[in-house]
């Protein structure tokens, strides 16, 4: 009997010390992204970027081995939550990363708080996300960042009467609200606000309504992936010839789809934080390596993934390999570095990203369509949080 007890205790101690030893050697990152379903293009970009970063920088940081565990959310936020829970409980991950859409990032927030695990948002763009948990940091962008800037651009270029057209979910509402606020404060007018259902097959009726309002410009936000259909129908309806300009955050001229959009998209002006055409040696190298490995162009989602990995690596170096949520998030605050998109940093107060926002126009370069940057706004904080 005694003998048995000792054996059991020994076994228990053995497994415990084994577990601890393992935890010291590897840092696990749970990457929860959509590899299938509506947001699959975002997942594909993120995965490619994460892989590229690890190929370039190796998988050893501060004496720890980095292990990325990829889980497919199938574009369903409920899945993201379940997968995040499994990753925390079963796989004992130190960091949860990814999250292709706002709802996915939001449902995981309470888990991150409870488990004291860092949640690194690499894609979703609604302003409020980082307030949902003290363990959230973001390397993508927020929609108000670009919406406010493009509103200023519209005012300066004499576009006073504007119709807004946004997808009807949190980031769309964010984009619309911050754009409208900035525009009306500057003397412009939104003559009509149209909300499009998120899963919408045909833009025709909404575009017709926008056309009949005869605005100077159309402010558009559709999620990454729907931009091409939108631009096709915009041209089909002859709105480009009617002198209506398209402006908006850069989602509508997503680099992933831009090459297929046709000439209708020429001249569209957007504000965003990344273009594959961004002129810096680092970006040239990034685009070349990315395209070589994947056969498609990196888009703004990809840099979120690439910089996300960089943030994790640097934070681990700073903590000397300590991977608990509190040390990591503390290390991430205020981190500054050079990204393919330009200089960026993590706001120490909000844990949100501070970055340059560029105004770009779609032009043809070597027979390919690109967002060509022509104006830069330095170190833009999320306007959604400044107001508070």
């Amino acid at each position, binding site marked *: 009997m005694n003998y048995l007890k000792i054996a059991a205790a020994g076994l228990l101690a053995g497994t415990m010390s084994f577990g601890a030893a393992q935890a010291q050697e590897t840092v696990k990152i749970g990457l929860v992204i959509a590899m*299938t*379903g*509506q947001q*699959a*293009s975002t*997942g*594909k970009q993120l995965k490619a970027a994460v892989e590229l970063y690890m190929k370039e920088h190796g998988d050893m940081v501060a004496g720890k081995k980095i292990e990325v565990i990829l889980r497919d959310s199938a574009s369903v936020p409920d899945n993201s939550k379940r997968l995040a829970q499994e990753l925390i409980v079963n796989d004992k991950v130190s960091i949860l990363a990814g999250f292709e859409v706002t709802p996915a990032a939001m449902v995981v927030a309470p888990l991150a708080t409870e488990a004291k695990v860092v949640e690194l948002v690499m894609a979703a763009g609604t302003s409020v996300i980082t307030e949902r948990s003290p363990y959230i940091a973001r390397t993508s962008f927020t929609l108000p960042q670009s919406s406010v800037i493009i509103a200023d651009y519209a005012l300066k270029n004499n576009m006073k009467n504007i119709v807004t057209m946004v997808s009807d979910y949190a980031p769309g509402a964010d984009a619309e609200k911050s754009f409208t606020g900035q525009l009306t404060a500057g003397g412009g007018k939104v003559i009509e606000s*149209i*909300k*499009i*259902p998120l*899963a*919408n*097959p*045909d833009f*025709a*009726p*909404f575009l*017709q*309504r926008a056309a009949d309002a005869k605005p100077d410009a159309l402010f558009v936000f559709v999620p990454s*992936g*729907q931009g*091409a*259909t939108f631009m*096709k*129908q915009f*041209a*089909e*309806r*002859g709105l480009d*010839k009617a002198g209506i300009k398209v402006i908006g955050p850069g989602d509508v001229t997503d680099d*992933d*789809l831009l090459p*297929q959009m*046709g000439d209708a998209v020429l001249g569209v002006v957007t504000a965003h934080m990344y273009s594959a055409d961004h002129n810096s040696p680092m970006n040239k190298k990034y685009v070349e390596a990315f395209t070589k490995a994947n056969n*498609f162009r990196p888009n703004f989602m990809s840099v979120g993934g690439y910089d996300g990995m960089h943030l994790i690596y640097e934070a681990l170096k700073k903590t000397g390999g300590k991977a608990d949520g509190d040390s990591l998030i503390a290390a991430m605050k205020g981190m500054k570095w050079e990204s393919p998109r330009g200089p960026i940093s993590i706001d120490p107060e909000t844990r949100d990203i501070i970055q340059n926002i560029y105004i770009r126009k779609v032009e043809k370069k070597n027979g390919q369509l690109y967002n060509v940057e022509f104006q830069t706004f330095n170190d833009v904080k999320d306007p959604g949080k400044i107001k508070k």
Partner: protein
Amino acid sequence: MLTILFDGVAYGMLLFVLACGLSVTLGLMNLINLAHGAFAMAGGYTTVVLVNSFGVPFFLSLPLAFLVAAVIGLVMERAVYVHVYRKPHLEQVLLTIGLVFMAVAGTDYVMGTSQVFANTPEVLHGQFQFFGVGIGRYRLLIIVVCGVLAIGLQYILTRTRFGSRLRAAVDDQRVAQGLGINVNGIFALTFAFGSGLAGLGGALGTEILGLDPTFPLKYMIYFLIVVTVGGTSSITGPFVASLLLGISDVAGKYYVPKLGAFVIYTIIIVVLIWRPQGLFSRASAK
């Protein structure tokens, strides 16, 4: 106003071509084929690949899309579907939804996840004014093609020998077989034709609906709406239902954009309360 009507008709016609194959297989052959959209997707990708990679003219690629989808349909019918004709509906649903997921994943693997478009010829771009009505050229093409198809189908089904054989085979398989009608052959042909139509619809629809690997899942609900509202025993039913849905969807989104997405669902509910068997169903259909 008339522009909206025109857009609605074009959208409805497109839904009709996409969904009428489904109504044929469901109504006439009593087979629930949720994978119908997969055939539409096959047609769509055929056009995209032919036009973009091989430089086949767009207009020629449309009949080819029909053919490719029809051949896939024929093979699938003989290889897979033939085993579930007599099985309960639940098993048919499980099998076909499985096929949908396979099609989605397979296409994803081969073609990539992002949306694709076929390069359409210059003739089809833009809009022209006709008595003050803005007419999109591409949408006009859809209306013409689909209108001709609808008339042709109605003719085949009601006026030709093949049509009467098909109807006989559906009404009572055993008697039809006893009279020397090759029921299996007719079913196979009908299934292939329905798939072909879906393929054509998919090819025509890429420009307006967009095409990506999730196409069969995204539009399944629309196909099912057309078939439920239209009833399954004729071509006229789904045709009228498609137009009704197309026009009300477009008009609803134009006039009350806030409610836009709900308009068609409201219409289904009203129609189904009023006529649970669909608009044009024979009340006593088995």
